[in-house]
C-alpha cells in the first residue's frame, strides 16, 4: 500500500479556496489588522512564497518517484518561517536548518533577479548548476543572500552562528567586516528536537555567557517547533519551560494568525538589533508528510493523528486569514496557487535536464583548494617595517637571541605568533587561559598585553564554542587562531571541524570559507605526568577528515616557519589547519645529553616559511636506513641515529614528516628508494589511524622493494607515571628495530641515488 498524503493536503487547500467567501477588499498598504506591521500586499507575497516552498516539496517527491530527485526533506508545515525571510535583511547572516524553503523564497525577494525556486530545484536534483553546493548536497545557501550553507542535522551550525554574532563588533573594531552594516544581526534556525543536543545547549550557553559579561551577542535563535523529532514527540511545553526562564536570553513566542506571527518576529528582530542580546524565538509550526520522503509516518502515528496535524496546515490558516481580512479574494489565491503549481512543475522538469557532477575532480574541486605558489607569496607578505617590528617585540627581536641564548619550541612559537599578529591585523588568538595566563605552557605569553583583548582573549571552557567562535569569526572576516588546550579535549568538539569547518568550502563551492589555524597542544612523553588526557596520542580522527591540513612541528625553528605556512594557507586558500604542538618538547632543551642544548634553536625571522611536502632531513649522506618520524618520534630517531652510528656502524638518515596531512609521500618515496630500508617511528597508537599504515601502504603500492618496518605506540590509553613507558615507543625499541631493519636481508638492494637528488631542505 502506498501512503501518500501529498494529494490529501493539496486537495484540502483547493477545497478551502473553493468554499471561502470574499470579504470587503483591504487596500494593499493597509495592515492586516489594526496595529499590525504586516500589510495586505506583503501578506499575499508571503503566501506566494509559502506556496512556492510547498510546491518545491511536492516537486521533490514527484521527481523522487522516477529517481530524478535526491532530497525529500521539506518545509511543508514550516512555511511561516517565510515571515522571517521577509523581515530579516540580506545583510543579516542566516544559518538555516533544512526546512527553510519559505524563508529562502521570501528572503530572495529582497534581491531582484534572484531565482530562488529554480536554485532550490537544482539542489534537489543534485545538479552541478546548483549555485551554492553544485550538487554536493541539498542545502539552503546563497552568497549574495548571506546564507552560508548548513547541513544542520545535529545543531552543529549553532556554535558558529553564535561565533559570528560574537565576532561582528570585534571585526568592525579591527577595521574589518565592512561587508555587513553595524546593526547586522545573526539568525540561526533549528527544530524542537534539536534543542536537546549538547551542541545546541553549548551554543545557547555561550550566547548567554557572552551577554552576561557584557559582550554584544546579536543572535536570533529560531526554534521551529513541530513537536516531533522524526518519530519521538517533544513533551508539551518543554521549550517554554526550558528557555523562557533563562537569564540573558529573551524568550518570545510566535504563534497564531500570520499577522501575529509576523509581529512577534518583528519585535524579536527589533530586540536583537537594538539590544544586541540573544533572543530565543519559539515558532509554532507543524510537520507535514513525515520527516522525509522515506519516512513512513503511519508506522508510528495513527491516521487520525496525521489528519489532525494536517488540519493545522499553515497554508490553510493563512489562506483563510487573507480572505477574511480582504487582503485577497479566493479567486486571487486560486490563481496564485495554480500559477505557482504550474511554474514549479515546469521548472522542476527543466531542472532535471541540467548536468550533474560526474568526475572525481569536479566533486573534490572545492574541498580544500591549495595553490602553493600563491600561498608562498602570501606567506612572504606583508613585511613589517623594521622599527615597527622591533617595537612590537619590546626592543629586542627574537632572532637576536642566538646561541648560546637559543630558545625552546614554546618560546619560538610565541615569537612566531607575535610576528604574525603584528603583520596581519585580521588575526585573532583565543582559547582557554591563553590571554591573562599566557597559556598553560606559556606559548601565548604576553600576547594579550601586546595586542589587546580585542585580538587575544580568553574564552569560556567549552571546545565546541571555541571552534564555533573560530568559524563565526572567519565568516566575519577575521583569521582565527583558536587553541584547544589539549588534544584529548578536541574530541568532544570534533564535529565542529569534521562536520562544519572542513565542509564549508565543499558545500558552498568555495563561496564561503572559514580559514583557521587551530593550535592543539598534544601527544605524550611528559615524563609520566598528566595521564592520558594530557598525553593523548590519537590523531586518527583528524587524519580521517577530508581536506584538513595537519602540521606537527618538532623543533622550534621549524614550528615558526610552519606556523607562517599554515597561516598563509588559511589566508590564501581558506584552509582549516590543525597545528599540533608536542607538549613534551615545548620546554625541552637537550637532544643527546643533559646540557647539550641540542633541541634549542635560533628564531628564523619572517618571511621564512614551510609548506606541506617540505620535509626535514637529517644525515642526508647516510643511506643504510631511512627513519621516518615526526614530533617526539623525531627526537627519538635523532638520538637513535647517533647510537646506531656509534654502537652499530649503521648510517641512518632521518626524515621529519612535519605535515601529517597531506603526507609528503613524494619525499618519503624518494628517500626510501635511496636508502632501501625504511623504519617508521610513529609515536601514535598502533592501529589508531596514525601515519605508519599510510606510509607503508603507499610504499608497498608503489612497488618499493626494500625492507619496511615500523615501531608504534601500544593500543592503549596512556597511564600515569613510569607505566607510561610501557605503552609508548622508547629509544631502546627504536634502536633495536633500526638495527633489525638495517641488517635484514632486503630482497633487492635498490641502486643508490645521489642524495642531492632527493627532496628535503636540511642536512
Amino acid at each position, binding site marked *: 500500500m502506498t501512503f501518500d498524503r501529498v494529494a490529501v493536503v493539496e486537495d484540502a487547500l483547493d477545497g478551502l479556496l473553493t468554499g471561502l467567501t470574499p470579504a470587503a477588499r483591504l487596500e494593499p498598504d493597509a495592515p492586516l489588522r489594526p496595529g499590525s506591521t504586516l500589510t495586505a500586499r506583503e501578506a499575499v507575497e508571503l503566501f506566494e512564497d509559502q506556496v512556492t516552498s510547498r510546491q518545491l516539496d511536492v516537486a521533490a517527491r514527484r521527481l523522487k518517484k522516477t529517481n530524478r530527485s535526491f532530497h525529500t526533506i521539506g518545509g511543508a508545515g514550516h512555511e511561516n518561517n517565510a515571515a522571517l525571510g521577509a523581515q530579516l535583511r540580506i545583510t543579516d547572516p542566516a544559518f538555516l536548518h533544512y526546512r527553510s524553503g519559505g524563508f529562502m523564497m521570501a528572503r530572495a525577494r529582497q534581491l531582484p533577479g534572484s531565482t530562488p525556486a*529554480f536554485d532550490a530545484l537544482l539542489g534537489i536534483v543534485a545538479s552541478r548548476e546548483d549555485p551554492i553546493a553544485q550538487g554536493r548536497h541539498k542545502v539552503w545557501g546563497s552568497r549574495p543572500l548571506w546564507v552560508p550553507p548548513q547541513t544542520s542535522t545535529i545543531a552543529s551550525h549553532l556554535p558558529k552562528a553564535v561565533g559570528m554574532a560574537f565576532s561582528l563588533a570585534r571585526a568592525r573594531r579591527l577595521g574589518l567586516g565592512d561587508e555587513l552594516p553595524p546593526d547586522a544581526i545573526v539568525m540561526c534556525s533549528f527544530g524542537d528536537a534539536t534543542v536537546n543536543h549538547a551542541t545546541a545547549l553549548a551554543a545557547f550557553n555561550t550566547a548567554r555567557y557572552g551577554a552576561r559579561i557584557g559582550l554584544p551577542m546579536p543572535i536570533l535563535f529560531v526554534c521551529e517547533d513541530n513537536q516531533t523529532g522524526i518519530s519521538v514527540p517533544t513533551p508539551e511545553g518543554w521549550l517554554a519551560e526550558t528557555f523562557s526562564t533563562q537569564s540573558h536570553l529573551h524568550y518570545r513566542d510566535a504563534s497564531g494568525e500570520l499577522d501575529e506571527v509576523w509581529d512577534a518576529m518583528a519585535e524579536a528582530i527589533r530586540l536583537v538589533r537594538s539590544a544586541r542580546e540573544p533572543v530565543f524565538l519559539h515558532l509554532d509550526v507543524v510537520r507535514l508528510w513525515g520527516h522525509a520522503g522515506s519516512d513512513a509516518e503511519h508506522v508510528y502515528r495513527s491516521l487520525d493523528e496525521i489528519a489532525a496535524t494536517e488540519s493545522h496546515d499553515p497554508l490553510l490558516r493563512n489562506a483563510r486569514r487573507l480572505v477574511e481580512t480582504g487582503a485577497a479574494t479566493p479567486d486571487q489565491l486560486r490563481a496564485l496557487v495554480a500559477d505557482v503549481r*504550474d511554474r514549479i512543475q515546469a521548472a522542476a522538469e*527543466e531542472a532535471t535536464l541540467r548536468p550533474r557532477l560526474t568526475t572525481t575532480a569536479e566533486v573534490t574541486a572545492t574541498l580544500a583548494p591549495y595553490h602553493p605558489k600563491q600561498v608562498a607569496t602570501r606567506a612572504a607578505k606583508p613585511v613589517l617595517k623594521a622599527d615597527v617590528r622591533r617595537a612590537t617585540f619590546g626592543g629586542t627581536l627574537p632572532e637576536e637571541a642566538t646561541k648560546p641564548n637559543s630558545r625552546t619550541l614554546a618560546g619560538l612559537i610565541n615569537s612566531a605568533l607575535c610576528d604574525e599578529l603584528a603583520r596581519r591585523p585580521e588575526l585573532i588568538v583565543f582559547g582557554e587561559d591563553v590571554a591573562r595566563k599566557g597559556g598553560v605552557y606559556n606559548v601565548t605569553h604576553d600576547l594579550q598585553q601586546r595586542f589587546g583583548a580585542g585580538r587575544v582573549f580568553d574564552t569560556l571552557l567549552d571546545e565546541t564554542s571555541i571552534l564555533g567562535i573560530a568559524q563565526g569569526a572567519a565568516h566575519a572576516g577575521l583569521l582565527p587562531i583558536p587553541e584547544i588546550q589539549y588534544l584529548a579535549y578536541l574530541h568532544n568538539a570534533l564535529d565542529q571541524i569534521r562536520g562544519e569547518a572542513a565542509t564549508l568550502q565543499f558545500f558552498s563551492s568555495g563561496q564561503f570559507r572559514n580559514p583557521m589555524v587551530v593550535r592543539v597542544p598534544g601527544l605524550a612523553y611528559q615524563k609520566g605526568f598528566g595521564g592520558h588526557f594530557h598525553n593523548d596520542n590519537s590523531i586518527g580522527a583528524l587524519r580521517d577528515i577530508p581536506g584538513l591540513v595537519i602540521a606537527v612541528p618538532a623543533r622550534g625553528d621549524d614550528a615558526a616557519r610552519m606556523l607562517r605556512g599554515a597561516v598563509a594557507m588559511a589566508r590564501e586558500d581558506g584552509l582549516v589547519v590543525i597545528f599540533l604542538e608536542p607538549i613534551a618538547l615545548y620546554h625541552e632543551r637537550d637532544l643527546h645529553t643533559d646540557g647539550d642544548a641540542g633541541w634549542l634553536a635560533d628564531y628564523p625571522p619572517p618571511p621564512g616559511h614551510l609548506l606541506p611536502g617540505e620535509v626535514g632531513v637529517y644525515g642526508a649522506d647516510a643511506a643504510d636506513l631511512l627513519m621516518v618520524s615526526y614530533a617526539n618520534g623525531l627526537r627519538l630517531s635523532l638520538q637513535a641515529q647517533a647510537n646506531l652510528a656509534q654502537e652499530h656502524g649503521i648510517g641512518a638518515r632521518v626524515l621529519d614528516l612535519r605535515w601529517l596531512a597531506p603526507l609528503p609521500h613524494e619525499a618519503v618515496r624518494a628517500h626510501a628508494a635511496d636508502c632501501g630500508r625504511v623504519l617508521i617511528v610513529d609515536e601514535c597508537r598502533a592501529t589508531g589511524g596514525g601515519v605508519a599504515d599510510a606510509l607503508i601502504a603507499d610504499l608497498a603500492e608503489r612497488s618499493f622493494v626494500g625492507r619496511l618496518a615500523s615501531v608504534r605506540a601500544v593500543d592503549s590509553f596512556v597511564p600515569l607515571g613510569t607505566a607510561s613507558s610501557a605503552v609508548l615507543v622508547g629509544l631502546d625499541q627504536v634502536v633495536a628495530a633500526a638495527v633489525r631493519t638495517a641488517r635484514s636481508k632486503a630482497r633487492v638492494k635498490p641502486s643508490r641515488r645521489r642524495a642531492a637528488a632527493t627532496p628535503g631542505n636540511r642536512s
Partner: protein
Amino acid sequence: MTDDRPRALLVFPGRGAYTAASLGSLPTGHPFVQRAEALRAELGLDSLLALDAADEFEASVHLRPANASPLIWLISLLDAERAMADHRVVAVIGNSLGWYTALTVGDALDFDDAFQLVQGIALLQEEAAADGSGGQVIYPRSGADWQPAPELAAAIDAALIDGGEVFPSVDLGGYLVLAGTDAGIGRLLETLPPVQIGERLFPLRLAFHGPYHTPLVAGVSTEAQARYSTLGWRAPVVTLIDGRGARFTPWATNPVELAWYTLGEQIITPYRFATGARVALREYAPDVLVLTGPGNTLGGVAGQLVVAEGYHGLRTRADFESAQAGDSPLVLSMHGRPRSAFRRSPSQWAPRTRR
C-alpha cells in the same frame, strides 16, 4: 478544465524594432489602430497609419522617438493579442520601451493611459535629445558562436572605467548597450576595438537613441513622474518581470511601486533585460518564447540568452539553431505573420477577466 496550450513567455522589443522592412505592418481597421489614431490626432501628431503606409522609409521620420515608440508599441500589442489566442501566457518581459508594452499587455495600464505614457515619454526623450546630450552604442560580449568572449567584456569594462560620461544602459546578455554624452559616445566609438559579427560591425551607434537608462536622462524621469504618476496604475493580470528581474504579480502588486519603478528607477538605471529573461526562464520555465513587434531585433538576443542559460539543454548556437529548425521551435517570432486576425476593442483589452 486543463489548458493544453503551450506555456508562453511574451517578449516585447525596444525602440530599434521598427525598420524599413516594417512598413505596412498596421491593419487599418483594427480597433487598437483606430483608437491610437484618434489619440494621436488629439495630440496633433502625424497619423501612425500614414507613417506605416509610407512608400519609403525615412529614418528622420520613422526613427523619431515620437513616431517609432508608438508604432512599435502598437504593432507589439497586435502581436500579443494573436499570440495569446494560441498560448497560455505565464509571464511577460520587455526590453526598455518593451516594458511599457508589457504594462499594457498585463493590463497594469489601460490602453489610453498606456498610449499617453508611451507617447509622452517619447516626446520627453525628443526634448531631452534636443540638447544634444548623447546616445547609445551597442557592443557584443559574445562571439559569433554565442559563447562569452572575455576579451570583449574586458574591453567594455575598460571603456566604462576610463570613459567618464559613459554608463551601462541595457544588458542584453550577449550584447551590452552603453550610453553616454556625445563626448562619451565619441570616446566609445574610438576606443572599443572594432568587431564584426555576421554582417554588422561594432561598436554600433544606435540612431535616434538618447542616453536612456542612465542618470543623463534624470530630467525625463522627473517630468514623467510629474505627469504620469496619476495614471490608472493597477496590478497586472499576468506576471510582469521588470528590468531588474523583479516580479509584479496579479496578486501582490502595489500599483504605487509599479509606477515608481516605471517612472523612476527604470528610466535612470541600467535596464537588465538579460536578468529579467533569466528569471523568466528559470522561475517560469516557459515552453516557448514568443517575440512580438515589428522586425526581429531580439531574435539573436533571445537565442543567446537561451544558450547562456543552457535552457532545454541547448548550450551552443548550433544546438539552438537545430532546435529552431525542428517541429516545435523554442523561440517563436510573430514577425511576418499577418496582423489582422483579431479585432478586440481597446476597452475589452484585458487578456483575462478584470477583477
